[in-house]
Structures are given as structure tokens and as C-alpha cells.
């Protein structure tokens, strides 16, 4: 079943210079088509300014298409009457955990979404218990967010989305401001939500190691989709990735360098284990 | 527009927080007096946010921000007066600068706020202290406070306005 359908989407920002006439239009998204099935884990890559965040905001109805349309479960994001439904079905998590936590305690923040949806107080409690248990932050439910580490705060932000019981979560560089440990925690949580709760995930990131396990990778450049496929397939196109100003996982890079020197390795190496395995066949 | 309402709430909330922070924690030590030379800068965010975002934000930033400080810090009895007086100050600064862009009007707006503060607190303290003379003691403090805030605001307002314009956040329609 298709959960997200983007049809010929264009988004133009208007920017003003020092004078009113000095007006410029930037096409941040330039004729994009995407179809995402329920339960998929999609990673979105692309260098700075390629339009990833703009795309993410469209999925949540935070931006409105200049041209084309975005459908969540068949609902057009342009339709005012179903906008809350769209936002409930497709939650978004941003980069800076501090700027998306509204409540002064963890449980209050988790309750914010359900409160806005008009959920009865006793149902809110069951929802936040489920959400906080899900992200492993139940023990901190009465804590102030200011006393949490970055990774913990980001997990609270995810719990806030989970409490709205969405079917799809968009994460815009959720690990960019975290340290390695916080990053590991958030990533394993996102993977678990995808595998265990069958939540569709769209994750924007700059870290190639984080997306090896995605079902699918979409690469954006200058507002267009330039690659779309399985990680193994995308990462096998090392030259193209480099030309786009991106990297590939360490193992892929090493394998690629070795192949250039004439070592006979397969194209689809992405992890350390695969690399070691193949090299050891020569022993 | 609907979008703007949430943005208004967020920006104004941040203005309230800034006013609180500057009232509670940001002080300038005056080089003149050894003892009572410490003044808070709570008026700075109030003026800046009123100039940037208009009268409603100004009124709430001032009234709620400084009122909240009074309410929570043992000046509870002053809180309702602060809410009204500083609220009006923010409103007036915002209202004047919304209409007129020129620098001179900013000065005038802050001067108006200055008068409101002095007169307002004088009246409030007559009610609180029950006489006409004791409230005069707080006048010099208020004068210096606003004067210092005014100087700071008039220096920083231009770079902030430019920055805010460049990052693309402007007044709510």
C-alpha cells in the first residue's frame, strides 16, 4: 500500500535582497516524483542546499507545493480540512532537539501532540506511557528536558511524535547535533520503530554509515532526484556519489580503492564484515 | 494567516523568555557608584522585540516577561502593576515603530516608554506604600535603567534588524 505519493512537486522560495525589486525565485524542489510504500525505510541523501529539508516539510504539510501535489494516505496536503490528519499520520523530527521540545517536563512534552488532537486525558496517559516506553525514556518522564543529554532529548522528541500514533515518521538529520553515543541510540530506535512497529521511515542524513541498512536510498541534487535505489546499488556508484559531493561508507570506499588497484572485489560491499569476508577468500 | 499565529506565539514566547533572562541575570555594573550601581537590562529585549515584531509582541514581552519575573521572584505584589505598566510600554514602543521606520521615531518610542515607566511606577508605588514621597526613591533607578537600555537598544537594533531580514523572518501580517 502506498503511504506517500509525491507527484511532480515543485517548490519555489521567494527571497528579497536589499530592495523590494531585488526579488529572486529559487526552485528548492524541482519536479519530483516519489512513491513510498508502507513500512519502507527510505534514506534521503544530498549535499547542503539540495532540497532535502524542503522535501521533508512538504510531507508534513508545513510547506505548500508551488506546483504538483503531495498525498499522505491519499490525502492531499493542500486540503485544509484534512491537514491535521496529514500531520498526525506523518510526523516530523528535526535536527535540533532543543527547539522541538515544548513541554517543561518529558511527559508534558510527549502529551503535547495528543492534547492538540483533543485526546481524552486518560487516553493521553496510555499513549505517553507507550511512547516513552518505546523510546526507553519512561524512567525520565518527570524530568526536565534541560537535564537530558542530546540523544535523550532527541528520543523524547521522537516519543512526542510516537504519541500521535503516526504511520510515517520523517526525520530531518536527527543525529546531526548528537555525539556518537546519542547517535547510536537514536539510530537503533529508528530502526526498531521501522522493524517492530512497521512505521514508514524517511530519514535525511549526511552520514553514510547510518543508511547502509535502509531499504532504499534517494539521492537529491539541486532540487532533483538523481538516484533512487537499494543501498548496495547506490553505493556501488562511487564515482557518481563523489561527483555529487557525497561520500560512501568506509568499507565501500576502501573496496573501491582496492579495485582501482586491480583487486578483484564485488561492487556491493558496504560493511566491514563483507569486506573482510571477501578479502579473506584470498587467504 | 493561520501559520503566522503559531509563529507569533513562538516568537513572542521567546521574547518573554529573553525579557525574563535579561531581568534576572543580565546586569551592568555602573562605573559610578560602588554600592547600588547594579542595574538589570530587562528593558532591552522588550524594546528590541517590540521594534522588530510590533505592538502585540512588545506588550506581551514586557508585561508577561517582567511580570513573570516579579511574580516568581518575591515581588509578587508588584506583578500586576508591572504587567500593566511594562505591557503598555511594550505596546507603545511597538505601535510607534510599526508606523514609522526612521531612527528618530525609535528614539521617540523609547522616550515614550520612559515616561510611562516613571509615571506608572510612581502611581503604583503610591498605592503600595500609601504615601506620595517614598515612591520618589525608585525614580532615579528607573531613569538610569531605561537610559542604559535605550543606549544599548539604539546601538544594537540596526545589526539585529539586518540579521533578521537576512534570515528571512519579518513581522507577522
Amino acid at each position, binding site marked *: 500500500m502506498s503511504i506517500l505519493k509525491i507527484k511532480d512537486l515543485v517548490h519555489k522560495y521567494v527571497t528579497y535582497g536589499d530592495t523590494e525589486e531585488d526579488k529572486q525565485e529559487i526552485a528548492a524542489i524541482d519536479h519530483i516524483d516519489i512513491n513510498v510504500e508502507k513500512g519502507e525505510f527510505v534514506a534521503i541523501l544530498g549535499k547542503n542546499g539540495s532540497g532535502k529539508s524542503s522535501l521533508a516539510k512538504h510531507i508534513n504539510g508545513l510547506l505548500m507545493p508551488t506546483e504538483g501535489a503531495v498525498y499522505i494516505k491519499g490525502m492531499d496536503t493542500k486540503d485544509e480540512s484534512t491537514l491535521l490528519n496529514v500531520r498526525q499520520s506523518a510526523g516530523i523530527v528535526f535536527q535540533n532537539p532543543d527547539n522541538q521540545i515544548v513541554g517543561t517536563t518529558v511527559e508534558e512534552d510527549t502529551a503535547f501532540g495528543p492534547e492538540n488532537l483533543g485526546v481524552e486525558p486518560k487516553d493521553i496517559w496510555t499513549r505517553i506511557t507507550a511512547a516513552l516506553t518505546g523510546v526507553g525514556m519512561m524512567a525520565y518522564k518527570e524530568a526536565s528536558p534541560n537535564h537530558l543529554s542530546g540523544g535523550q532529548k532527541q528520543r523524547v522528541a521522537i516519543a512526542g511524535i510516537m504519541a500521535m500514533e503516526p504511520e510515517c515518521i520523517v526525520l530531518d538529520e536527527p543525529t*546531526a547535533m548528537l555525539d*556518537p553515543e546519542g547517535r547510536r541510540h537514536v539510530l537503533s530506535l529508528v530502526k526498531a520503530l521501522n522493524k517492530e512497529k512497521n512505521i514508514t521511515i524517511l530519514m535525511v542524513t549526511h552520514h553514510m554509515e547510518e543508511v547502509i541498512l535502509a531499504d532504499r536510498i534517494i539521492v537529491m541534487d539541486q532540487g532533483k532526484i538523481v538516484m533512487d535505489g537499494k543501498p548496495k546499488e547506490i553505493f556501488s556508484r562511487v564515482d557518481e556519489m563523489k561527483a555529487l559531493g557525497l561520500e560512501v561508507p568506509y568499507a565501500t570506499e576502501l573496496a573501491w580503492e582496492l579495485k582501482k588497484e586491480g583487486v578483484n572485489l564485488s561492487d556491493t560491499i558496504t560493511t566491514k564484515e563483507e569486506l573482510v569476508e571477501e*578479502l579473506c577468500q584470498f587467504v | 494567516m493561520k501559520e503566522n499565529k503559531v509563529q507569533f506565539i513562538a516568537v513572542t514566547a521567546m521574547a518573554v523568555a529573553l525579557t525574563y533572562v535579561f531581568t534576572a541575570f543580565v546586569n551592568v555594573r555602573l562605573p559610578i557608584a560602588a554600592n547600588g550601581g547594579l542595574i538589570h537590562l530587562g528593558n532591552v529585549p522588550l524594546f528590541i522585540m517590540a521594534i522588530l515584531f510590533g505592538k502585540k509582541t512588545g506588550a506581551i514581552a514586557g508585561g508577561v516577561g517582567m511580570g513573570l519575573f516579579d511574580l516568581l521572584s518575591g515581588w509578587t505584589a508588584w506583578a500586576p502593576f508591572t504587567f500593566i505598566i511594562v505591557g503598555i510600554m511594550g505596546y507603545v514602543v511597538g505601535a510607534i515603530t510599526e508606523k514609522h521606520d526612521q531612527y528618530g521615531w525609535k528614539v521617540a518610542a523609547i522616550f515614550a516608554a520612559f515616561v510611562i515607566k516613571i509615571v506608572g511606577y510612581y502611581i503604583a508605588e503610591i498605592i503600595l506604600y500609601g504615601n506620595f514621597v517614598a515612591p520618589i526613591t525608585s525614580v532615579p533607578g528607573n531613569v538610569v535603567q531605561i537610559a542604559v537600555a535605550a543606549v544599548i537598544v539604539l546601538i544594537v537594533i540596526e*545589526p539585529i534588524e539586518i540579521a533578521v531580514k537576512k534570515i528571512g523572518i519579518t513581522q507577522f501580517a
Partner: protein
Amino acid sequence: MSIRLEHVSYAYEDNSSKKNYALKDVNLEIKKEEFIAVIGHTGSGKSTLIQHLNGLIRPTSGKIYFDDEDIYADGYPLRELRGKVGICFQYPEHQLFETTILDDVCFGPMNFGKTKEEAKEIAIKCLKDVGLPEKLYEKSPFELSGGQKRRVAIAGILAMEPEYFILDEPTAGLDPVGKDQILNLLKKLHEEKKITIILVSHSMEDVADYAQRVIVMNHGQVMYEGDKKEVFSHKKELEAAGLAVPFYRQVCEELADRGFPIQRDLLTLEETKGAIIQGLKELRGK
């Protein structure tokens, strides 16, 4: 010529007035012209440590010497020290404030007594060093992209012409290209201008690529300190301290474990690549 810490401890004051040591008995010497990396788990005290190096925070106990002079002796010119030891904090672009990029970079040197003209000259030089296109100099710093802002902020510290340049996670939040540009800039500053670099980083691979010496912090104490090859040989201990060894070293270890003829202590892509090819030749020879 060095910065030396002797028995430095530091406790943040807590609401409960309980002493909370962020640094415990740290002894270190940072010599001129080194390229040092500081690594450690979150909250291990890295940021606290570097703020001691230019007198931004004063140790609860212990001494800090700059060129063998106690920086907390009476009359020591702390402000001058801050000109010699520049610190670039995390997300330095959040501190930009002037209306033009050039003015912002001039701010540091002018605080240290340079005239406007002198400051401008230095600023232009530094902006060139960080590779910012000249047509941007008169623009507002708020118009730039994240990576460009980061470079302006770095230029702002460089313009104080520091002898020691400390950077707290300078690549956080940048894309791969932006990250490489910043790290290569540091390398260039170190090699060409002989500036001592002290880099705080969470990326073991970057540390392995760029640094010479590594300081490992663990719960406020120096856990290891020395040549990077030596430090990264403590795989188990580092992992227990919430760190890791660089990817390439992991590959080498696993290959070696499985009988592939390769050294275990290689750290970078280049080294590893060469060694694997060498190893394959050996294997073919047999």
C-alpha cells in the same frame, strides 16, 4: 615553549553545593607546533579542559603554565594570553554579529589593540586562508550557508594570530565536503604557518587522519596520551570508555585475526590500502 597543566582539577558549582569534578588531577604538556587531538566520551571533560588552556575558567586546584609562567600569578596579562591561545567553540557561527563579514573578522584583532587598517589587512589574509570568495567580504554573515559561516567564524579567531589554535568539534553538522575542507584547512595552518592545533573530535577516523598526538579523556581524567598509533592500540579499553578505534584499524585487526598477512596498527585509508595490496602479493607469492 608550551602550555603545561599540573595537577589541574575543576569542579562545577552545583545547586546542591556538592563538588562535581569535571576534571581530576590532569597533568599535560602541549608543545608548540604539535597537532593534537582530544577525544573522549560525552561529558568526559574535553570542553572543560580546553577552556583552561587560555584562562577562560580557573582551575579549582592546580597550576597552568604558559611558557613556564603561571597564568594565575598576580599581574599576568590574561587577556594577552587569550590572543595567543585562540579557542573556536562548537558552532562558532552562532557568535557572528557584525553587519559585514570583514568587520566581524576584524573584531578580534581590534580587541587586541590593532587599528582598523591593520585589522582589515589581517582579516583579508585570514579570509583568504579559509577560502572564502572575495565577493562575499562586504556581505552580512547571516546570508551565508552553514559551511561558509563556519569558515568566517574560524577566520575570526585566526585573525587574532594565535600561536595555539583550539577547536571544539569544528565539523559538527557539516556535510562531507564541508567537513573535509575545514580539516584540510587546519592541516594547512599547521604545516605552513606552524600553528599548534588542538582539535576536539568525536570522529576516530578524522583523528587518525590528521592528528599526531592523541589525548584520551575519560571521566575527567587523562586516560591515554601519546602517539596516535600507540593510543589506538588499546582497543578494549577505548571501547570500554565509550570510544572506538578507527575503522581501518578495525579492518586490519579482523583481517590479521583471520590469517591475512597485515599489520594490526594501520589507521588511514592510504596505509591500509597499501598494506592489503602488499598482503595480497605475499599471498599470491606463496
